[in-house]
């Protein structure tokens, strides 16, 4: 008798907790914005110590994550996974890979293939400038939003290259910010702006860096993030 009463009380308690959890509403619009800012913590990649096995893990783990996410996306697009499992998906993402997949691919390419000085501001642009432009577009005119986005990107490039020579800081800020805004502005059916906002400025800066290196002009400043445990 006591056991039965206790079970009923536990059941009621469980129902109440479930009811409360189901009653929580999350705004998809802001959820997408916060997903962008969350990606900034992947810069922890640069804090990992330079040990041979960690260097191997630095390559293998991000690639495995992207392959895993790619498989999930294939299953979703193939219909094996319901779209309802993916909160905040836009309608057009029902028929093509979702933005987070493009974001991840861009992030991994930058982390593995570009020097930190170039990759870091490009990743920060994707994390903060992309959602900021989205918010500006909601509240202001379209062109004003892109101008503000350009200024924000230029500030990020200037701050992360502050150790370089002044003319380099100026050029990199202008070129990087132009690339970031161009990446955000370009719209393709199969290429997401989350990928382009990272890769367009990175490729532009990479070309300039390599071009000037041929002329024996070094523009890269010292790295900003050092492995944990001291240099």
């Amino acid at each position, binding site marked *: 008798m006591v056991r039965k009463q206790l079970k009923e009380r536990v059941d009621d308690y469980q129902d109440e907790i479930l009811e409360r959890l189901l009653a929580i509403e999350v705004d998809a619009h802001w959820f997408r914005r916060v997903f962008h*800012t969350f990606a900034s913590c992947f810069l922890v990649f640069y804090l990992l110590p330079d040990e041979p096995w960690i260097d191997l893990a630095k390559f293998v783990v991000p690639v495995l994550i992207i392959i895993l996410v790619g498989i999930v996306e294939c299953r979703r697009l193939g219909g094996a996974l*319901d779209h309802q499992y993916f*909160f905040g998906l836009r309608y057009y993402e029902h028929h093509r890979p979702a933005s987070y997949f493009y974001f991840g691919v861009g992030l991994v390419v930058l982390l593995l293939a570009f020097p930190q000085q170039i990759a870091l501001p490009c990743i920060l642009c994707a994390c903060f400038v992309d959602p900021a432009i989205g918010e500006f577009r909601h509240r202001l005119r379209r062109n004003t939003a892109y101008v503000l986005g350009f200024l924000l990107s230029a500030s990020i490039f200037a701050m992360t290259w502050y150790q370089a020579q002044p003319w380099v800081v100026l050029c990199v800020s202008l070129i990087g910010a132009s690339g970031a805004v161009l990446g955000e502005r370009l719209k393709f059916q199969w290429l997401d702006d989350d990928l382009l906002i990272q890769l367009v400025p990175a490729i532009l800066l990479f070309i300039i860096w390599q071009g000037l290196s041929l002329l024996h002009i070094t523009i890269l400043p010292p790295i900003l993030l050092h492995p944990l445990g001291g240099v």
Partner: protein
Amino acid sequence: MNRKEIRQAQKLILSRRLELWLTPLLVLAPIIFAVVLFVESFGQGVLQGVTLYDGEFLLGGIILVGTLLFDIPFLRTVHFRRRQKKEND
């Protein structure tokens, strides 16, 4: 539907609420990362007088400010529907 089926349905809906499980991670992870950068900058930079670590401080600041600017409106939008209360009223 009987009571057992209703609870199973509730659990199924809850398992699909990915955003609910991810919210603490999305909000806290960048803040923790920014704090790690500040600690590293203070420990290696300020205490040992190495100016190389100014970058960690700068980056920690950018990440913390940028994250909070988006986290605060996001957390404001997360609200609880007072369904039971309304029903009772």
